[in-house]
């Protein structure tokens, strides 16, 4: 279980997160929606301390970090319990697909190189890249790179995987293959928090949907409820505006 309590974050005078409370049960898939600048990516990055929250508390199972004065060791432990899939993939450029997945296993988890290799090959096969083991990121398409990114995150066996707009940088054609992989691992019961603009996907895969705006959680609930009968006016506006039919009709 992951529990965030009163997470606050400011960039200079600009308060981006205004006290976020969020609980994610084990095995849950949570989708965070909201307009640009609503703080959803910042919130996600606070969970593994790529962004340093000013205040609040992060609890993962029985491990907890007090954000006001975290020690280095706590941050390190927190990062080992989480994994992240980035919008820009951020694969290690000088390492092959296989090495990218192995890196965390044998540098961080201290698993022997042979064992790490076997496990990494398994994972790359799972995301459909068994034939690209020795390719460098520059030789892979965006969709393939992102699938390597997902395998790299999975390898660490984290308590939670954080997805930061995993399909936003992809060609429309390639979005499908990445979403299919996420959908597949969601079924295995891994806890996931996904920041996304893919409404259909969120509705389909998420077990819980959170709508954020201007640094606060406006509304949250089951996907069916939130998408079909939102309670808050702001949520209604947002959902109406991003409905494709309305946006593209001429």
């Amino acid at each position, binding site marked *: 279980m992951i529990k965030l309590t009163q997470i606050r974050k400011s960039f200079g005078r600009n308060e981006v997160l205004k006290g976020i409370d969020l609980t994610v049960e084990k095995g849950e898939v949570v989708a965070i929606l909201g307009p640009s600048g609503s703080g959803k990516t910042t919130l996600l990055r606070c969970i593994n301390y790529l962004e340093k929250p000013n205040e609040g508390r992060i609890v993962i199972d029985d491990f907890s970090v007090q954000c006001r004065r975290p020690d280095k060791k706590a941050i390190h432990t927190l*990062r080992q319990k989480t994994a992240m899939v980035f919008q*820009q993939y951020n694969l290690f450029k000088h390492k092959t697909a296989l090495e990218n997945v192995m890196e965390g296993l044998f540098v961080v988890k201290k698993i022997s190189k042979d064992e790490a290799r076997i496990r990494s090959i398994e994972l790359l096969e799972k995301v459909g890249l068994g034939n690209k083991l020795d390719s460098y990121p520059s030789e892979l398409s965006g969709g393939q790179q992102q699938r390597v990114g997902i395998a790299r995150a999975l390898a660490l066996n984290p308590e939670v995987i954080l997805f930061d707009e995993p399909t936003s940088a992809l060609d429309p054609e390639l979005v499908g293959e990445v979403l299919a992989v996420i959908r597949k691992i969601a079924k295995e019961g891994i806890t996931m928090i996904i920041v996304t603009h893919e409404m259909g996907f969120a509705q389909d895969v998420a077990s819980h949907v959170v709508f954020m705006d201007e640094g606060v959680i406006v509304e949250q609930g089951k996907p069916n409820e939130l998408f079909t009968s939102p309670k808050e006016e702001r949520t209604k506006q947002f959902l109406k505006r991003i409905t494709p039919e309305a946006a593209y009709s001429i």
Partner: protein
Amino acid sequence: MKLDFGFIWTAFIALLPAVPTALAITAVSVFCGLIIGTAVAVIRLYKVPVLYPIASAYVTVIRGTPMLTHLFIIYFGLPMLIDGATDSLGLSFRSVSIPMIGFAYISFSITAGAYMSEVVRSGLLAVNRGQIEAAYSIGMTTFQAMRRIILPQAFAASLPNLSNMVIGMLHGSTLAFTVSVVEINAKAQIVATTNWKFFEAYLAAALLFWGLTFLIERLTALAERRFNLYNRGGVS
């Protein structure tokens, strides 16, 4: 004026024994400079407390003074310092037992370190911020991320500048003749004093330097191809 082609060749052959000295000075100063430069670059980029102002002062002072001046200051200053220290400690070591080339090694390493720190810094800046975030996200410490992810990429990115540095230090090694180290230029002078054909002797030296530089250029081209292998796709 008549050019004595025969003597150019004779001088060229006579210069060859000085090549190892020139290469040794270059190799030592580049190697030590790279280590000093990497440390300084990392300290300056991450603003390490206490060390940061020292590193910045080092770079501005050393880059702000000529290489020849460094050599003289080390050559005249270091013996005083060493003899003073050994005297007060009651040791029998004397600075006269330091070979002349030792002063060149020390002073040129200090020179190279300052310039090299900027070479390494440009390499570090070329590495996308996402790389270190990804390293942190899989649970690496800053040290692990530096060693395994950031520095290898920074090194590949700084290779062109690095080859500039190596060539610069090779040519700079000629300054060592001012402290009685017989490198290529000094050797040319010695060879020429036998028959006063300085022009031919220095022409031979120039040819030799060009040859060595050409070699360095080829080697970096090979290294670039090897270390930038991962950029070959060019899709991302």
